[in-house]
């Protein structure tokens, strides 16, 4: 009976409400519409009236431009595509909204003290191994998928920065072996309360690198001492043990390369040395480079091998840029990286004021003088450009040392951090980026009386497509 009563009451209430419901609904909905229109209108006006972004610091690229109209571009669909892309790509405060989006997406995951996030394709449990020396060299692309995602607008160009045509383009399988078409990507690990992004290494032979250096040795003879110093990726040291199957040993590759270089070429083993200093900040957590401190230990090892005078780091002036977040944020789109900045600490030699740095175009003309260690715009993201301001140039440093020694450094961006430690060791230092040099390097070395030639670059470059450029430098 009671239940019946309750049901009756309920239905009365229901009927009673239904009678007035249309009026209430109309009133409530009219308010809801106003709220929707207000929110929608604010967003629409914001997108329309605020200045459009023109480049993205996170993605390191220029954003899309408004397309030019023509009948051809219209009927091919390029014009309308360009308009949509322009509008969507150049949202005001784009980077801030992207960051907000990454933060929002991070709530989807479970975060633990020792969390690991893998970015990029996952064809795993096939530990890639260095291939036999007889095979073509190969390697794996770092986080290609995330990089692709960042370059959504295919018709926009990248901002020139430390990641342009960087060592992020190692060769993929040329030998058709499925094992080496694997893309391992990047893993983000949390350790001691801090996040660190690590580029994984898929193995390689370095055949092209070995061949190029041996050819240089043949062309230059024993008049010029040649050194090979390959910098390992941070994943060599910081990959958690249970993820070690995701990355190949770089030490094995270095040893293999060293064993195949001509006797006259000196291999500088920095893999072992850096291994002793992993408790220090020798690699950035948020950037794909080593730190200036890591480069210091490498330079020290090189100085030992070359028998040079070398000053202890305590004699250098220490400079700090706080709040640095490097390229790994763009690669991984992981807000934890952005929210966990680090200090960019670099060291300037005490004789800096007595040294003159000349910056040339890539054909060694149009000289201009400015500092080796230079200020950069947006240092919180571009601090690594502190070294010479970038890669696309030839730099000559005239030091106050008078020992007749002249060094040519052939490098990728890893090598940018090295020459600053050698200002007290050489009379002249030439810094040449293997990707941006228009002259014949053998002739250049001979004409300028270079005594030592140092090849220094990261593993990806030594086993990847950048190595092909070395032999081109010799023959072009």
């Amino acid at each position: 009976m009671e239940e019946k009563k309750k049901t009756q009451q309920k239905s009365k209430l229901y009927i009673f409400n239904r009678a007035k419901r249309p009026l209430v609904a109309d009133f409530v909905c009219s308010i809801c519409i106003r709220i929707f229109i207000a929110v929608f209108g604010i967003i629409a006006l914001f997108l329309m009236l605020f200045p459009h972004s023109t480049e993205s610091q996170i993605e390191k690229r220029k954003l899309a431009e408004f397309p030019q109209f023509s009948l051809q571009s219209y009927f091919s669909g390029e014009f309308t595509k360009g308009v949509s892309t322009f509008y969507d790509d150049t949202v005001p405060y784009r980077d801030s909204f992207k960051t907000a989006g990454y933060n929002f997406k991070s709530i989807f995951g479970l975060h633990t003290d020792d969390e690991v996030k893998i970015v990029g394709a996952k064809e795993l449990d096939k530990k890639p191994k260095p291939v036999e020396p007889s095979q073509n060299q190969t390697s794996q692309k770092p986080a290609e998928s995330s990089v692709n995602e960042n370059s959504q607008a295919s018709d926009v160009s990248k901002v020139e920065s430390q990641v342009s045509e960087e060592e992020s383009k190692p060769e993929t399988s040329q030998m058709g072996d499925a094992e080496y078409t694997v893309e391992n990507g990047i893993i983000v690990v949390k350790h001691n309360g801090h996040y660190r992004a690590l580029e994984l290494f898929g193995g390689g032979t370095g055949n092209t690198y070995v061949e190029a250096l041996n050819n240089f040795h043949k062309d230059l003879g024993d008049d010029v001492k040649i050194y090979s110093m390959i910098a390992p990726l941070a994943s060599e040291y910081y990959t958690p043990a249970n993820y070690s199957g995701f990355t190949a040993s770089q030490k094995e590759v270095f040893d293999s390369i060293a064993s195949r270089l001509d006797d006259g070429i000196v291999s500088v083993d920095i893999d072992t040395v850096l291994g002793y200093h992993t408790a220090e900040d020798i690699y950035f957590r948020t950037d794909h480079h080593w730190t200036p401190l890591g480069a210091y230990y490498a330079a020290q090892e090189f100085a030992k091998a070359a028998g040079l005078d070398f000053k202890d780091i305590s004699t250098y002036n220490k400079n700090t840029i706080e709040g640095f977040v490097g390229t790994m944020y763009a690669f991984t789109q992981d807000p934890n990286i952005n929210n966990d900045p680090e200090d960019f600490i670099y060291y300037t030699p005490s004789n800096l004021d007595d040294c003159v740095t000349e910056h040339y175009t890539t054909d060694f003309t149009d000289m201009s003088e400015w500092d080796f260690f230079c200020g950069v715009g947006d240092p919180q993201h571009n601090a690594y450009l502190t070294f010479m301001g970038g890669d696309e140039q030839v730099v000559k440093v005239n030091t106050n040392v008078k020992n007749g020694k002249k060094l040519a450094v052939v490098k990728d961006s890893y090598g940018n951090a090295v020459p600053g430690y050698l200002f007290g060791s050489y009379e002249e230092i030439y810094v040449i980026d293997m990707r941006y040099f228009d002259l014949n390097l053998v002739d250049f070395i001979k004409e300028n009386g270079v005594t030592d030639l140092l090849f220094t670059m990261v593993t990806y470059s030594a086993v990847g497509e950048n190595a092909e450029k070395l032999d081109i430098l010799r023959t072009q």
Partner: protein
Amino acid sequence: MKLVFSSLFFLYVFMAVVFLAYYLRKDVKYRNFVLIVASLVFYAWGEPIWVFMLIFSAAMNWFIGLKIGQYKDTPKAKIFVGTAIGIDLLLLVIFKYTGFLVENLNVILPIDIPVPHIVMPIGISFFTFQAISYIMDCYWETVKPQKHFYKFLLYLALFPQLVAGPIVRYSVIEQEIDKRSPMTIDITEGAMRAIIGLSKKVILANGLYNIVKEYFGDFLNGSPYNDISSMSFLGTWFVVICYSLYVYFDFSGYSDIAIGLGRMFGFHFNENFNYPFICKTISEFWQRWHISLSSFFRDYLFYMPIFGKQRKYANLFLVWFCTGLWHGASWNFILWGLYFGVFIFIETKIGKKKMKKWNKVVTHIYSKLIIVVGFGIFCFSDMAQLGNFFVNISGMGMLFRGNAFADIATWNSLLNNLFLVIFAIAVSMPILQKVKYFFNEWGNNTVYTVGKGLATLGCCYLLVMSSILLVDNTNNPFLYFRF
């Protein structure tokens, strides 16, 4: 580049302009004019040339519809029906299946015809089926042929449902083309529905696809499939479950936006999804999944007396063959259709009454297993990877290839997307529907008002968050644009 619903340009330029223009005046003629112009601009944005084919298709079907009305109950009517459907299907076959047909002919016959790469006009599968349904309805006299071309053009080209459905029958909006006056509740409910659809796409579907593409490859954006031969048993299951959820949220999200936008303009489209994952049988799944397509095949193909007395089962397999083929010019889609056809055939043989007596847990597990494996077939147009998928998911990969039972990468992906997956599963259940029902139907007016207020705030939040996520998703076309 298609003008996709989930883009800032569509939302805050196109829709803003259309909405303002639409509500500038009240008379229906003006509003129809606005919608026709908007629809043609919408289509021409992605297809500046094929928009003329859309207009041609509309003109041809409208004209033949009139003729069918004129010659009703005469043999001429049949000829007109045949002509219209013949042309409609011919266009569909030319644009969608030529390459596939030539490829297969080259395999079967000792010939080597160059495979043409014809770019398919977007939405052709949808508006062709709408046109066919109109022609058949005219012939069956369930609708009156539309006398005015512009009104028929509005029906066929109406932009909310033009490129990816739902397949709206003419009878559904016949009255509303001439007479509609959207109430405040229509605009509110429509806006909420559209925003929920947008969020399903941007937050859930895109998030789930990010997991899928890490393992299976970014195939929806033209990249090849990854080699999945060494994927672990659990890894394969995890990713294909994510893919199943992705397809659901991607497509039902689009349908929600279409239905919502339609309602904002005063049209009431039929539902296209009804929580398909709560089904207990495969037959029930198809009563809840892509309803407008399955009902199209049911009404216009299944009941056609093609195979005489044996039509029931022969038609059943014909329907499922066509359902598969409709989804794409690839064998995996045909296999996918027939796969479901087989299970529906088996269920028909067992009988609904018997199946109802089965334990609910058993039927749920049975149906989900079949559905998820089905989406695996749907996923891989590359037969080698489809083979690997079957090997992995059946456990044979562990037995014969030494694949792992589980792997650290899967575990890692699960942890990094744990709440996304849980949330997606929750949203695929009718929880929100029940909450809405409580606030709307059983609560008093205060509860109703509070419910509406919460829903409005929730939708505003979703709109803002989806818009922010769209800043980073400039290329995220809907899956069903491919069909």
